[in-house]
């Protein structure tokens, strides 16, 4: 087994600090109180005998009494009138869509319990992200309002009814219309054709109305830039699948940028095992400040400061076009400078097959990006302006103007639809001051959130699982939203409220949507309404993507970019990037406990945001990890956050996640982290997510709840990787397979697997680490959320986790002479060289999903004293919860540390009041999976309920099982198809083929536990094809 690289999960492990060495030997995060019990005082106490007898007597008596209890009487209450389509015990599936992703909603006995991607969606079937997977929990959120609210005579919001609200609102709207003042509907971007039509009808009824769209995370920069450059005010459709070379400047396109899951599917299609088999792999450069999910997946990642992004783009433009624009130099960042020259050359070589994207929301910057993309022939191939993405259409300037209008007292009524500006607007004070001057304030929020508490009417909206509706994520593509449960509370769909208030002919929204589709959409597609309800999504014939050439002058643009960057590079200030975290995004779903406990893909922090600093920079400032520092911007906004030392963060910069610090969202999400929205600034007509701050130490310390350093692998060879060049020479490069296997001896009998042999293959090249599989597994398998304190004690319950390993990727000493790994910025460092390195800025990352490996010779099975975990004849490691007595021997003996112990009854314990501690939320539980009790071990079961279900279906239909009949929850959710599951006994199954790949290796195969999960080596396309 060759060990070519050294990996580490956290800085403590890398540096091998004495603390870490000490801690890694301990099983528990906290010392056990053994000393207290076994010390002299404990042993020499005088009372034992009598007390012992008393306790014994009581215990015996109690047990006897408990055993005398008669069996409980269970009631069985059938339907009075059973809906025809419901068979208790059999799920029904309905198509719907969430955030433009077409989904299947699984319902059991009429309640939605799981969201799955829609397999009929064709090109739309791109997996689901963590938000979509978690969204089912939002339906069962107890923090929602149970009925509409109306301001009473005392001025307080109190329970009301729809008739009273309609009467009040209609009268007030008529008054507002008559007053000659303005009426405003404020919403996040809406792409639903029916909702747009409803708003248009409302505007007809109240002509003083204007619809203002804004997004907490704005893409106005791109829209305005495209309007400026090509006369098309749109977010284009990006085709990452057509790009052999992707260069991103701060755009987290695999995570949070525009539509991460779609881009992941496209991007991975050029890098996964199928693509590698055909000898093709794209190349990806990432220039960014904070370590993003996309950055961790880049072949080459170059940290740059926020202030360097503009000059970097100018330099790239110069390199491609040969123009000599001023300002295109990065004197302080040699690596980036060198990398940009290389990128420029490669882009020219890949004309028409390359794509440059930028995460900036600055119009000038995006115009420059347009110019670069035009120069490398991206338009018509990798960028499609004619079938634009309609997810984001917010207009920052219009929204900023609304604040001014309100403050001038020009607005008589304002309606907040799917928006919460009091929380997520940059200048909260100006907004709330203005809001106070508005006569009628209506919110459609489902809870008393930051904005709705300041309103006169809270006309609570349905959850999307209770709603009718539609979406159009791309021009010409339509998907339907259909209800899967009757409204649980006395809510009313916002569109229906608007229809009621505008007194149109159709007041029922279902009828409205149907009319809208039947009159406008279906004739174009040639389909019927029933087709829509079955398929859920329709794509019209896309228009041919036109080629566009950037023909404008950059004269006005360049000075603006340079000024922006100068404004950020202030002496004595730290450049701060505020970004969306992969789990929390813009904070709309902050009350979703699944998302709060989803570890950040890079930092592995749960339940908090933090300020990320580079190791060297933190050292320089004198901060240690978890020190609480006070972050203050020049407007005077201050928050205290713990420091997280983040390798790969650009020097002189800091990053803080948005979406935290909600104060009125509900039980789980209130006061988790700090709100970073006020750091956003409004300049040059758009919102900017970069600013400068100063830091001061507070002296406090707050340990973040990280899952990162929970499990040390003691430097074992568990990640294997190779470069693309090596792979092309020898497909098994780096996998450890090239030298043949050792002869091995077994202590155990060989298990026969005469029927099926359930195995899994995981493609490390496809996995981006997004974490959607974790949430999918949580929902499918009733995995409890444990909360921040318990995560700190290493007690999170996730059955699948994604381990993140750092390694170096720098110009090592004495490296230039070695031809094998190339030279320059792309060189891979050998372990022996790491001793000489200390540049933690430039790290590369591997994500490794880790779940129960279902070992054939499972070490956990041999140590269980009660045979609660045993092997099955189809290759699975079974776990019988009712047999487990909780010795935890198995967890100790598991080399992969994938067994999780239930320290508490998380679903019925007031100390864990995050989500499941009430009967309503418990409706989200999957009835086919036991909820585990306190004192029981659990772990990945390979979704055995799905395996058994799939087998039974085949048996009833009297047919053999087909490959693909059974899918794991994690596999289904994965946009990248990184997880392949199936029958290893079927030589033609997808998984058998994958496991025959030369790249396959088994984690810790040297200990001969014979795992059932194979991993494919990580391949990096880092070799320089062009010499810098």
């Amino acid at each position: 087994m060759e060990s070519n690289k050294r990996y580490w999960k956290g800085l403590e492990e890398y540096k091998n600090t004495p603390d870490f060495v000490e801690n890694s030997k301990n099983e528990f995060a906290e010392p056990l109180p053994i000393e207290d019990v076994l010390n002299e005082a404990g042993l020499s106490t005088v009372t034992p005998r009598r007390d012992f007898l008393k306790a014994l007597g009581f215990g015996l008596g109690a047990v006897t009494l408990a055993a005398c209890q008669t069996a409980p009487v269970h009631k069985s209450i059938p339907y009075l009138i059973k809906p025809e389509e419901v068979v208790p015990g059999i799920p029904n599936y309905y198509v719907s869509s969430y955030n433009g992703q077409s989904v299947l909603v699984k319902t059991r006995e009429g309640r939605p319990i799981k969201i799955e991607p829609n397999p009929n969606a064709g090109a739309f079937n791109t997996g689901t992200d963590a938000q979509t997977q978690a969204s089912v929990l939002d339906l069962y959120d107890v923090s929602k309002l149970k009925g509409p609210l109306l301001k009473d005579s005392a001025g307080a919001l109190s329970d009301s009814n729809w008739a009273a609200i309609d009467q009040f609102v209609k009268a007030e709207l008529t008054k507002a219309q008559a007053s000659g003042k303005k009426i405003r509907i404020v919403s996040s971007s809406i792409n639903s054709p029916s909702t747009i039509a409803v708003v248009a009808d409302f505007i007809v009824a109240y002509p003083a109305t204007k619809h203002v769209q804004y997004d907490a995370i704005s893409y106005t920069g791109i829209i305005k830039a495209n309007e400026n450059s090509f006369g098309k005010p749109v977010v284009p459709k990006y085709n990452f699948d057509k790009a052999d070379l992707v260069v991103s400047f701060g755009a987290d396109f695999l995570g949070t940028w525009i539509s991460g899951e779609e881009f992941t599917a496209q991007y991975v299609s050029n890098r996964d095992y199928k693509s590698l088999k055909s000898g093709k792999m794209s190349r990806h450069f990432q220039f960014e400040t904070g370590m993003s999910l996309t950055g961790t997946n880049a072949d080459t990642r170059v940290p740059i400061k926020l202030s360097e992004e503009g000059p970097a783009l100018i330099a790239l433009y110069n390199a491609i076009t040969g123009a000599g624009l001023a300002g295109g130099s990065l004197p302080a960042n040699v690596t980036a400078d060198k990398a940009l020259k290389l990128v420029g050359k490669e882009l020219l070589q890949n004309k028409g097959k390359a794509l440059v994207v930028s995460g900036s929301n600055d119009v000038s910057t995006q115009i420059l990006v347009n110019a670069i993309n035009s120069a490398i022939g991206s338009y018509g191939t990798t960028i499609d302006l004619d079938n634009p993405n309609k997810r984001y259409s917010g207009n920052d300037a219009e929204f900023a103007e609304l604040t001014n209008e309100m403050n001038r007292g020009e607005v008589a009524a304002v309606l907040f639809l799917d928006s919460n500006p009091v929380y997520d607007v940059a200048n909260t004070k100006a907004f709330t001051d203005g809001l106070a001057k508005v006569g009628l304030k209506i919110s459609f929020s489902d809870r008393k959130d930051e904005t709705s508490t300041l309103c006169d009417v809270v006309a609570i909206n349905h959850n999307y699982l209770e709603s009718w509706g539609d979406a159009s994520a791309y021009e010409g593509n339509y998907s339907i939203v259909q209800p899967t449960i009757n409204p649980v509370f006395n809510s009313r769909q916002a569109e229906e409220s608007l229809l009621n208030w505008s007194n149109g002919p159709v007041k029922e929204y279902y009828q409205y949507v149907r009319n809208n589709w039947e009159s406008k959409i279906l004739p174009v597609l040639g389909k019927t309404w029933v087709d829509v309800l079955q398929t859920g999504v329709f794509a019209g014939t896309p228009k041919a993507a036109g080629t566009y050439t950037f023909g404008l002058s950059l004269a006005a643009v360049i000075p603006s970019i340079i000024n922006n960057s100068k404004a950020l590079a202030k002496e004595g200030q730290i450049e701060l990037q505020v970004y969306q975290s992969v789990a929390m995004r813009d904070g709309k779903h902050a009350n979703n406990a699944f998302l709060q406990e989803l570890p950040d893909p890079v930092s592995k922090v749960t339940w908090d945001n933090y300020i990320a600093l580079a190791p060297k920079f933190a050292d320089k400032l004198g901060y240690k990890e978890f020190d609480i520092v006070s972050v203050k911007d020049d407007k005077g906004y201050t928050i205290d956050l713990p420091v997280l030392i983040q390798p790969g963060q650009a020097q002189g910069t800091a990053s803080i996640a948005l979406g935290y610090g909600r104060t009125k969202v509900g039980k789980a999400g209130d006061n988790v982290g700090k709100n970073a929205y006020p750091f956003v600034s409004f300049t040059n007509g758009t919102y900017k997510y970069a600013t400068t701050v100063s830091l001061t130490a507070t002296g406090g310390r707050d340990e973040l709840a990280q899952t990162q350093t929970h499990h040390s692998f003691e430097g074992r060879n568990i990640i294997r990787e190779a470069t693309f060049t090596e792979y092309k020479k020898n497909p098994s490069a780096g996998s450890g397979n090239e030298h043949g296997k050792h002869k091995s001896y077994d202590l155990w009998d060989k298990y026969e697997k005469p029927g099926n042999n359930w195995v899994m293959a995981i493609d490390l090249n496809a996995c981006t680490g997004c974490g959607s599989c974790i949430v999918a597994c949580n929902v499918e398998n009733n995995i409890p959320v444990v909360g921040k304190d318990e995560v700190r004690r290493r007690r999170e319950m996730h059955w699948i986790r994604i381990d993140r390993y750092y390694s170096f990727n720098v110009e090592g000493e004495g490296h230039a002479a070695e031809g094998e790994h190339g030279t320059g910025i792309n060189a891979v460092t050998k372990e022996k060289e790491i001793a000489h390195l200390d540049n933690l800025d430039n790290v590369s990352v591997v994500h490794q999903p880790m779940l129960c490996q279902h070992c054939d010779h499972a070490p956990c099975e041999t140590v269980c004293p009660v045979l609660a975990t045993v092997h099955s004849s189809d290759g699975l490691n079974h776990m019988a919860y009712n047999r487990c007595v909780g010795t935890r021997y198995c967890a100790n003996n598991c080399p992969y540390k994938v067994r999780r112990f239930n320290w508490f009854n998380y679903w019925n314990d007031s100390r864990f009041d995050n989500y499941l501690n009430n009967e309503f939320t418990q409706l989200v539980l999957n009835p086919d999976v036991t909820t585990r009790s306190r004192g029981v071990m659990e772990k990945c079961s390979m979704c055995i309920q799905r395996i058994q279900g799939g087998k039974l279906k085949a048996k009833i239909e009297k047919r053999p099982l087909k490959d693909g009949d059974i899918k794991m929850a994690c596999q289904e959710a994965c946009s990248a198809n990184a997880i392949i599951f199936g029958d290893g006994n079927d030589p033609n199954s997808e998984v058998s083929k994958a496991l025959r790949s030369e790249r396959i290796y088994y984690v810790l195969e040297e200990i001969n536990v014979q795992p059932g999960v194979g991993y494919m080596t990580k391949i990096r396309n880092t070799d320089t094809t062009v010499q810098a």
Partner: protein
Amino acid sequence: MRNISLIVKRVWKSALVFAALSVLTVSATQAQDVVEGRKLFKENCSSCHQLTSNSTGPALTAKLNELDEAFAIKWIRNWKALVDAGDKQAIEATKFSPAEMSFFPRLTDVQIKSIIAYAKAGEPKKKEEAGAAATATDDGVSDFSVAGIIAIILLSIVVLVVLGRAIKMLERLILQKQGVVIVEDEAVSFAVGIKGLFKNKKFVFFFILCLAISLGSFGWMGMWNTGVHTGYQPVQPIKFSHELHAGVNQIDCQYCHAGAFKSKNATIPSSNVCMNCHKSVQATEKYDGQISPEIQKIYNALGYDPATQTYDKSKEKPVEWIRVHNLPDFAYFNHSQHVVVGEAAIRKEKGLKPNEPVCFACHGPVDTMPEIYQYSPLTMKWCINCHKDTKLEVKGNAYYDKIIETHERIKKGEKITPAALGGIECGKCHY
């Protein structure tokens, strides 16, 4: 006690009916018409018609009293012909309900007349009166008879005791006359005897041994049967009889337990399934023209008013059945797996007759259970034993083809049981 009172009640009832019958003077021929008509009515009409209230069709007693008999006969035989012929009365009559009445071309005029006679006469009156008389005296009789029996027993005990005393006294007198002196020391000697017994070590050992064995076996049996509820027969909110429905009426199990062949749950039927029959089947004949109180419970649950045949949603109240077959939450059982996939194998193993449903294998002779009870122990041992013993019927199910191929190569000639295919591995039922 309930049984005794029931027996007494029945005896009294029949005696009263007999008396009433002999007193009443009823024309024998007329009675014959009515009896024949009642039989025909039950066979042909009762699924849609009731005598006193509207059902799918109108209430017949009132309707036939107002109709001309000749028209009624024609209508019953083929109402459509009347309508087609343009009969105004017939066209008017079709307006009662959109549901179309069946044709009865095979009924003779005499038969139809009998039905009409029965419908006009209503349910035999004499029986009702007699029944009413019987019910009026019912409670008094049963109480009286119980008290009587108790009195007789008490009296006989008193007599026996008195006689015993008398005999003893007489014996004493005889002995005294013979000059025998009677020493009254029996009680003392008894106590001494007991004490002596406890000083006997052999006896004490034997006593303790017996105690230990009996307690031990009691404990052992108790523990084995903890949580085993064979024979569990709770009182259900509705006295539903499987004997009547599945036995006498031969209704297929799946008619009500529709999930059994599709899902893991056999499902308890929803009340609307009951209404398929019980909208018209009201067992009024057994309850003196009143709707059976048990059937009335279905109506109450649904908020159904049989008089107006309307449902009132606000009065809905689901029936809360007591679950008889309880598996713990951590055990997964799937009905369809057993009754669809495993049907042939289970039938063979359990030796079920062809006319018996496969359900009987575990649920026992449901068709003879007036009230349902748990027939099988439902213990894990019981499951496992069956999985070990039952030979799978794999022929004709292509699912097993591939599995069997591999399997048979390894285990030539061995019996293929669920256990051989992994059917007793923990995770197959516990997840």
